[in-house]
């Protein structure tokens, strides 16, 4: 073996032995069940990327700077070998050691397949092989290593190079977060070197195209940076950056990161609310500490809103408030109806309420003996309350958003591993014959599938229902005699995701179904509304849920709501409905969007009205 390469590998043996030793120790601890299964999730999502980044930086920064400081670099430079060859040899040795360390770090998560509690990690392992994950991850850390090596050429102390690389790494991570936040629907998430919750890395690993494109670009960058480092040492063996130069470079990195984030942010037209109504809340002064600001204690920490015309029903666990937005600039509380012993049901950002004329239909559970009961409460603004009983509360049952069509109300229900569509006539206080939609397969061992949701959305004469095995179309042209018009089998992305919620939305001729791990959207073509067929599947990294009114789609985003529409191969952001606060739920009615702000200790909750028509994309 080339003596110089052997020397470089010898110099890195501490990293190799330490890293592999640490991995072996963790593997042993995993095998002996010392940690809970959650450790693997913690390792994969936080510790592994940090360890790999630390190794990439640690190996790279010392290779030239330490030799320059110790003056052993002079020993090499007065031998018949080019400075470029010295750097390339170091690069080869460093890359080999880094590859071994990254492989060991990633392999830990695959060491004991049956021992993972974390669902996100389970999804990763079911969908991405160790080899795929290594192929996608290594080029990213390789690039960071090459940058560290280049910094090592620029300075005369490992610590200085490490400081510069650290500033760069932090700037890049901040940049990744900023890009993901500021540029909705961008493909930036495919380029991250860590699991950021959007599933971008998993999707990139699964796709041969994304894997080769991102991996290829990172690898090419790594080689380019190494070539630059070699060229720099060839040009001059002296350090390029003193302490002042180092400070200027670090500042430049931060400035470039900030400017890049600004440049990458999507500049959207903003829309301000036309009217704001503040929920009553008690302002409490801090008693024990003067420096703690006053906090709002809001009675409606849960709940949401539903709208019909200009009437907005604000639902909490204890009351429904009807707010009249017919003069949006001066909304007024029309009535408050108390809901004693009541708890509304909600899951994620889906609020289970709908409106008919001046009444709101809310799915919830009411305290009762011997067991609590699930009901659809029909609350009229006049103060009267009707209830449609649905049955006793059972943890494995699921109830969807109620969907009123004509005089009837439809509800997706899962009970005893059977999903069905239940139909009610509230005026007549009777229930029609249900439609069986989906008989779920027996539960998988060691996987708690929970209550499988049935998501439901109404468009024209059809209801579309997402249940664990199917996307079902129900014709409600004759509301009293609904019939199943079509049924599309759905294959979950991973076995254990069977029964995972798949929110639905629609816009124009497209029905959207959000899927998870990695997060994506399947778009169905509705040109034949009875028989939707899959038209495209694309990445959805803007959030988990969306509401559509047929003209555009909406989702809570930053301090407001993002308005977007479907484009050919994804989504396109249109407007930013700027609320000034995070949004909990939204409701659409005609040309208006109503947004209920999320509870915070600092601000009272409000309902804000945005006039959304016409928007740019309409």
């Amino acid at each position: 073996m080339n003596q110089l390469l052997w020397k470089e590998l010898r110099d890195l043996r501490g990293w190799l032995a330490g890293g592999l030793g640490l991995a072996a120790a963790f593997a042993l601890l995993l095998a002996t069940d010392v940690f809970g299964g959650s450790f693997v999730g913690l390792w994969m999502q936080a510790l592994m990327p940090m360890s790999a980044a630390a190794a990439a930086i640690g190996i790279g920064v010392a290779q030239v700077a330490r030799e320059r400081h110790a003056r052993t670099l002079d020993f090499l430079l007065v031998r018949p070998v080019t400075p470029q060859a010295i750097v390339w040899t170091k690069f080869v040795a460093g890359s080999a050691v880094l590859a071994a360390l990254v492989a060991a770090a990633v392999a830990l998560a695959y060491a004991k397949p049956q021992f993972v509690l974390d669902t996100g990690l389970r999804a990763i392992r079911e969908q991405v092989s160790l080899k795929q994950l290594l192929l996608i991850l290594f080029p990213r850390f390789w690039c960071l290593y090459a940058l560290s090596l280049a910094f090592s050429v620029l300075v005369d102390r490992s610590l200085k190079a490490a400081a510069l690389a650290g500033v760069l790494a932090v700037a890049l991570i901040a940049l990744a977060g900023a890009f993901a936040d500021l540029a909705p629907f961008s493909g930036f998430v495919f380029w991250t070197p860590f699991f950021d919750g959007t599933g971008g890395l998993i999707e990139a690993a699964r796709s041969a195209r994304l894997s080769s494109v991102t991996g290829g670009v990172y690898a090419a960058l790594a080689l380019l940076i190494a070539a630059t480092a070699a060229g720099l040492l060839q040009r001059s063996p002296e350090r390029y950056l003193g302490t002042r130069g180092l400070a200027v470079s670090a500042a430049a990195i931060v400035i470039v990161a900030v400017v890049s984030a600004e440049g990458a942010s999507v500049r959207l037209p903003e829309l301000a609310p036309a009217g704001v109504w503040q929920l009553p809340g008690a302002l409490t002064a801090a008693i024990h500490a003067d420096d703690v600001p006053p906090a709002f204690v809001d009675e409606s920490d849960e709940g949401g809103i539903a709208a019909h015309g200009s009437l907005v029903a604000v639902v909490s666990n204890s009351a429904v408030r009807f707010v009249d937005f017919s003069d949006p600039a001066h909304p007024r509380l029309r009535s408050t109806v108390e809901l004693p012993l009541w708890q509304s049901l909600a899951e994620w950002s889906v609020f289970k309420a709908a409106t008919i004329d001046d009444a709101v239909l809310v799915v919830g559970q009411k305290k009762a003996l011997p067991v609590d009961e699930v009901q659809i409460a029909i609350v009229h603004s006049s103060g009267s309350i009707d209830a449609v009983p649905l049955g006793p509360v059972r943890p494995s049952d699921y109830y969807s958003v109620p969907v009123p069509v004509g005089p009837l109300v439809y509800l997706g229900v899962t009970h005893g591993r059977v999903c069905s569509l239940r139909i009610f006539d509230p005026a007549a206080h009777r229930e029609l014959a249900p439609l069986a939609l989906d008989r779920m397969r027996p539960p998988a061992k060691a996987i708690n599938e929970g209550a499988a949701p049935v998501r439901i959305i109404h468009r024209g004469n059809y209801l579309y229902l997402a249940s664990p095995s199917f996307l079902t179309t129900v014709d409600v042209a004759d509301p009293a005699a609904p019939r199943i018009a079509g049924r599309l089998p759905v294959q979950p992305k991973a076995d254990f995701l069977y029964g995972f919620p798949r929110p639905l939305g629609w816009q124009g001729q497209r029905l959207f179904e959000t899927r998870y791990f990695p997060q994506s959207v399947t778009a169905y073509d509705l040109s034949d509304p009875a028989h939707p067929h899959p038209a495209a599947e694309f990445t959805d990294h803007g959030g988990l849920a969306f509401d559509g009114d047929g003209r555009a789609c909406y989702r809570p985003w930053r301090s407001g709501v993002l308005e977007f529409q479907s484009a050919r191969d994804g989504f396109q952001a249109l407007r930013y409905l700027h609320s000034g606060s995070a949004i909990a739920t939204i409701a659409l009615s005609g040309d208006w969007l109503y947004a209920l702000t999320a509870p915070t200790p600092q601000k009272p909750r409000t309902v804000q009205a945005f006039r959304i028509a016409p928007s740019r994309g309409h």
Partner: protein
Amino acid sequence: MNAIVVENLTKRFGRRTAVEALSFQVPEGSVCGFLGRNGAGKTTAIRMLMNLARPSAGRATLLGLDSRAHHTALMQRVGYVSESPVHYDGMKVRDLVRFTASFYRAWNAPRVGELLDRFAIDRDQKVRHLSRGSNAQLALALALGGDPELLILDEPATGLDVLVRRDFLEGIIQLIQREGRTVLFSSHLLHEVERVADQVVLIDHGRLIHSGSLEELKLSMGRSLEESFVEMVGERARL
């Protein structure tokens, strides 16, 4: 034919000029003393010759080749020992010799072995355990391993005791010169230079004071090298 040709060699560190427009030649086969006070710029100039420092201006030609453009080719033919040689101290002497030899097309292993024996350096000893003197001797042995046509030594006698220094300067340098090779060695110990050098280059504050034959210098000044140096440097200081 000159083994070393230096033309307007300049090195600035920020606003400080360490070497300024230095020009001189060293004929082939000569032993040239490169003289100057501490901090005169000798080491900086030598580091530029060895391409360990990038000149701010000017150029140097060694053995007819540009020192920067043909650095790698030149290093097959030029040996160098720095003021305080640093080696990979985790290696054993034997491993370091093998490692160094791997860079050269032709490696004179018998000569290196002979020098290690002459300096009584244990081949199985770790470099970090060598004394300062042994370390300098090891550096010299390694520099001679490639059979260099030109040997550049930066204060080679520093850290050596009197006996070794005498052996080093008179024995080794004359041995090398007998083989028709050129030696440039820097020093501030003028009486030692006077014993072995036939050429001298004198610099002060990074500038050339004198370059040429040592004999001619002594004849023209009518004094010893040391007295001549004091007079020239003192005159400059007065100016």
